[in-house]
């Protein structure tokens, strides 16, 4: 399971409406997946996204930080799921039938590869965002930690906050936070 399985088929599997690939063919850039969290639009580079699945039974793991929703069974593997809204310190929206879990593949410092999922309210679409469409993150205006943002992507009529997934889902930081919580007397 090492290749990104992103294709329209994948979307069908998870019973979501199929977004179409509205790639801008004129200039070259990267492919991004955009999604809604807490009423805002975000984007993430596609290359580390493995799959998108329905929001389903997440088993809560007690005594873990708030942003860790729990774990799910992904084809026999136990995968932790992060609540992106909480991680970004935004408000949580209730679960609807459009809520999904996006599974990404993260690498830890020692080269070990692991899957992590994060919850989004709704998946938007896959699109090409050309380099010249991306501006640097604003100094202020967003209350998200600056290292989480890799830039602002300009789409037709809106902006998407492009996330630096290595930081958002930084394995090291997550580990430390979990350990911290565990030590709590």
């Amino acid at each position, binding site marked *: 399971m090492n290749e990104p399985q992103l294709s329209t088929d994948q979307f069908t599997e998870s019973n979501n409406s199929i977004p179409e690939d509205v790639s801008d063919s004129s200039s070259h850039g990267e492919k991004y997946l955009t999604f809604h969290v807490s009423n805002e639009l975000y984007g993430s580079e596609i290359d580390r996204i493995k799959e998108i699945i329905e929001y389903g039974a997440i*088993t809560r*793991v*007690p*005594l*873990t930080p708030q942003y*860790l929703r729990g774990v799910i069974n992904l084809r*026999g593997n*136990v995968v932790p799921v992060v609540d992106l809204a909480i991680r970004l310190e935004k408000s949580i929206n209730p679960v609807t039938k459009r809520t999904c879990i996006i599974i990404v593949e993260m690498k830890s410092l020692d080269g070990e590869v692991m899957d*992590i999922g994060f919850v989004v309210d709704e998946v938007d679409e896959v699109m090409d965002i050309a380099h010249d469409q991306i501006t640097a993150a604003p100094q202020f205006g967003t209350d998200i930690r600056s290292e989480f943002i890799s830039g602002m992507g300009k789409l037709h009529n809106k902006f998407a906050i492009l996330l630096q997934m290595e930081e958002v889902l930084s394995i090291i930081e997550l580990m430390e936070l*979990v350990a911290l919580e565990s030590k709590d007397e």
Partner: protein
Amino acid sequence: MDDDSQQMFQQECSDLLTDMEDALLLLESNPHDNDQINAVFRSMHTIKGTSGVFSFDDVVNFTHVAESVLDNVRSGKIEIGGDLIALLLECMDHTKILVQLAISEKNITAEDKSKENELLTQLNGYLDSTKDLKEDNSLQEQALVEKEDIDDAVDSKYWHISVRFDHEVLVHGMDPLSFFTYLKKMGNIISLTTIHDQLPLNEDFNPENLYLGFEIVYDSDAEKQQIEQTFEFVKEMCVLYILPPKDSIARYAEMIHALPEDTMRLGEILVRSGAISMDELENALQLQAEPKNSKNTPAPLGEVLIDKKAVHEEVVDAALVKQNQNQNMSKSQRVLRVDAEKLDLLINLVGELVIAGATTNMVAAQLGDEKLLESMSGISRLVEEIRDNALNLRMVQIGDTFNRFKRVVRDVSRELGKDIKLTINGADTELDKTVVEKIADPLMHLVRNAMDHGIESAQDRDNKGKSVQGNLELNAYHDSGCIVIEVKDDGKGLDRDEILKKAMEKNLIADSQVISEKEAFQLIFEAGFSTAAKITNLSGRGVGMDVVKKNIEALRGTVDVESNAGDGTKVSIRLPLTLAIIDGFLVKVGDSSYVIPLDMVHECIDLSDQNSDDKEQGYINLRGEVLPFLKLREYFKEEGPESTHKSIVVVQQGNYKAGFVVDGLLGELQTVIKPMGKILKDLRGISGATILGSGEVAVILDVPNLIQRATQISHRDTVNISNRNSQTLH
């Protein structure tokens, strides 16, 4: 040298060196044990031989000298004593280094080289001393020679005929009786041995077939051709050897090689063939054969026997090769070397099978089909058996690890100038291979600790009225699904007050904190606690007690310390028997399901309305026993529906019991422990996750950790309560 050969060679040398070390240690207490002396010689000899095959000249040259010394010990020319054993142990260590260098094709360091020269000088010293004994030897040899001459004379008189007929020979109208009768006309059958090893006693037996073989010692003046003619009619249907008297030595070798491989002992073969007498054979069998293709190393067996003028080198080599073949065959039938990765793969598959079985069981239950359910229970039973057997493959005896400590204890006690005796109990206790590998280092540290800081010097012990010899015990046994390993010493024990004082100095605890004895002893595992600065060359690696505890916890184990100041200390390590698949007990707490390892579940009791306060902890009276309990709902901050009929699951680990209050009991199940990944590795109270038959993930509780929590809080509460002079325990 390719990887496979390299590994094999290394493994073989490692095994041989271990054998040699074991034998040398035994010799220390009993220097005249011939079996051990021979064992040491054999090991060194085989290492030399095998190294010769790979042309590792450095190893060969060094081991050759050691082997010569050992040879002289064997023949009684050199006395074995403490000094020589110590020297041999050093040689063994050096051989280890040489083997390693040979495999990695590195050059020897100057330091090691000078060590080698030193060892060689000492070894040669022993060899020189044997020269004085030459005179006595020559007398002995003369007596032997005389005896040999007589034997030679006897041997050379007779023919030796060996015949193995094909099975169908009788059906074709030929009966051995007629051939033997004919032989008798031409000479005398001195002896005929009927070999019935191939005779089937079961239903494979066909009475019209011949399953017998014959070895005949025959006295006759006839020519070979005449004897051959006897078997003229049957020569197409048999394997026949006719060995004339004299000049037949090489042919004996050939014949022995060609004999069918039954389990006939080598001795019988050679003695029957009249090649060697029983005495000579006994001597010869004490040595081991070696590959003939090493140019540097002539068979010492050959040397010995040629000296005694008994038999030519080739014959005995051939005979011993055959013996080894037979032995190796039976040995290899008993043990297989298996690739660890293949085994892991198998175990993973078994794990998946367990889950798939659970899922199918669930579906069968939902369908309610009687026949299907019955069939499923049959399958479940089988899956359980496969699971147990597969996991069993990974089990090894802890004795191998324990045995390594014999040498350590010996060396370290010498180094420290203390007299310490090591006793090992439960060496045949089995545990998972990976656990064994990972527990070795922590154990080593604990043993060194006990010897360094626990056991007092002989003088001190004497002053205290203790036995001068200190006792160190390594015990292993199974207890409720765990394996317990104890490192016990009768040294000076731990002083609780001292420890508390030290801990306060290092700010590990606060002044006012109430600490039980158990907790106090646990403090020695805190990072920064240890003051032992001396790290000797054998303990190496700067391992501290905190790392010991971490390593044990990484194996989902716990470590406990019991001690009486003045009497001694006992460190108990508890480890789960299997790492992969467990029997679990499913409970409901709020909305969530949790799995409790079944072998720690003692019993379940109903919690009829107790006071439902919000405190997450309390006590109940369990048949006169005070049982601390933990309300999982509160502890885990669950919010789902609360049951009015709660239960307490009483769990036990070693001597400690506690209860977990849960909302519902959901029954037993087999589960496969799934890794939760790095992020969730160090969770308190959680030891892993598993996938239920429904596909959901369930969290596995870390029972020892939770028991500790239950008892900790309760202890503090008790003290607080009693301090405040408050009400009765509830």
